[in-house]
């Protein structure tokens, strides 16, 4: 009986979410909120059980290093909470852990991006292959990739120099920049198209899996 009710509920909730494509009705909203609320509550419970409580366990606190880490963490969380208090002096103290957290996170992200993304990707330009079996075209692909990247930058970040050039009537600079920006624009459109297309494919797989899951339950 309980299993049948569960299957029925799963089917109804799935259809309620799917029906959003037709009309954003109240049941859809209710189910969405239920889903998000249950997820948030579950995450909170997991963090409490798997992260916070083990940190306070007697066995972990016997290690002086772990004890120090826990105490500093508690102090920082307390100061972060004080950041939102109204008294000015308290807010200044509260900025200390917030700044530390943001600073360490930012530095880590920046260093990681330089070392793990920017430099390797720049170095990888030389590996670009237009057609793998024709090495002579490798140079062409590198030039094309560079021009396209600069075109995208030009399209997204119009500089004062560019604006000045664009003000001139029918100049060579205007023609060149317009063409370059157009190249960047189409490169962006192609990239966005690829992203949207692959996202649609992925969501379609999810939908099919969900339908098959329900069919398996019903039959």
């Amino acid at each position, binding site marked *: 009986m309980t299993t049948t009710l569960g299957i029925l509920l799963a089917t109804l909730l799935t259809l309620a979410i*799917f*029906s959003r*494509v*037709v*009309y*954003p*009705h*109240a049941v859809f*909203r209710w189910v*969405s*909120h239920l889903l998000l609320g249950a997820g948030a509550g*579950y995450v909170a419970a*997991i*963090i409490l059980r*798997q*992260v916070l409580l*083990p*940190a306070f366990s007697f*066995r*972990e606190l016997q290690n002086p290093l772990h004890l120090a880490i826990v105490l500093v963490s508690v102090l920082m969380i307390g100061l972060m909470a004080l950041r939102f208090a109204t008294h000015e002096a308290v807010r200044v103290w509260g900025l200390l852990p917030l700044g530390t957290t943001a600073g*360490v*996170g930012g530095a*880590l*992200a920046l260093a*990681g991006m330089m*070392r*793990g*993304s920017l430099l*390797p*990707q720049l*170095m*990888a330009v030389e*590996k*670009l292959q237009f057609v793998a079996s024709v090495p002579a075209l490798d140079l062409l692909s590198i030039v094309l990739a560079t021009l396209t990247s600069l075109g995208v930058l030009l*399209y*997204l*970040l*119009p500089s004062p120099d560019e604006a000045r050039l664009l003000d001139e009537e029918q100049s060579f600079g205007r023609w060149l920049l317009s063409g370059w920006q157009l190249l960047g*624009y189409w490169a962006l459109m192609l*990239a*966005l198209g*690829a*992203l*949207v297309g*692959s*996202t*649609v*494919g*992925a969501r*379609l*797989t*999810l*939908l*099919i*899996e*969900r*339908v*098959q*899951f329900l*069919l398996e339950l019903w039959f």
Partner: protein
Amino acid sequence: MICPHCGQETPDVGDVCEHCGGALLPEVRPPRLLSQIQGLILPEPVISVGRLHHPDVTLPPALLPEHLDVVLPEPEPQAAAEGHVVDLDEEADDGAGQQEGFPPPPPPPPPALQAQPNLTMAIIASAMLALIVAGSLWNVLGNAGAAMRPAVKEAYTFIEILPDDAQVLVAWDYDPATQGEMRLLAQPLLHHLQRRGVKIVSMSLRPFGPDVATDAMAFSARWQALDSRSLGPAPSSLGFIPGDALALRSLALSPVLASSQPSMSAQATGMRQDETVERFDLVIEFSADYASSRHWIEQVAVRSSSRLLVAASGAIAPSLRPYEQSGQIRALLAGYPDALAYESLLNQVGPARAQVTAQTLALFFILGVVLLAALRSIVGRFRS
């Protein structure tokens, strides 16, 4: 200063009002294309009836695609105050709001504010659902061969040549929302690892990670029940490790210390606290989130000679391709097609093969709808 949203006095320091939380900074106009992207692709699902709610984006009604037949309301004063109004009509904007440092006051709401049910969408959605059900019940293409990308063969070879006492770190960085797609990739890879008899250590950067890992292992157990070969030791787990990039940085230095319960993790995995991520012969990340994969590349792959294999959702695969081409990801498996190809290599009938007919029919259906819409648009243009 006086808050433009609630009218109360608030200190000059800070970006938001102390009383109502409204923004105090002047509106910053994003670049033209960026504003277009923000306007057309919403980062979060829309929940409210007939209203687009997002802290950064409020769409003007003129941007709505006509075929959706949804009438958007004008933003209410409070909603406009909380949100960032993206105005694409630069010529029409007199800039008065920007001069004052506040967004311009919203126009009064029109009388018709409710979204209308869309009959066309109902027919299209029902037809697609019917096709998927038919394709699932009658899987005539179940034995169709899959297109094999070199990366799939490469991933298969990596696992095939692992030494018998190898240790593999598996990261489960996806949520139940994408489980249906990710399970397609997880099941064959997990089965292959267990068939090779290697030691698997699980971990996750997401709270739901241990749960989706359990689910994937339960599905994989169905295949193992049919396999007569030895299946190696039971997987151990480092659990959920919070902290994203920060957690991965410490994981690269010491997986045991990075976990929430170091002593228990050391016991479960048999690793010492001074062992780094180099201890693992292979690192596999199951990811439905581009940021997670990037963190793995930037924080772990650059510090380790262990091979990184990423099994990603099809939605983020295009963003990860550059990392595969540069060799930072040794092999990238993406979505349903690669799952199908991997199942073929294992000679197993798995969940990807069960989807072949339904997936093919649904893709052809979507292609047909897009072609019809394009044709209708072209004909309409000629008529006008």
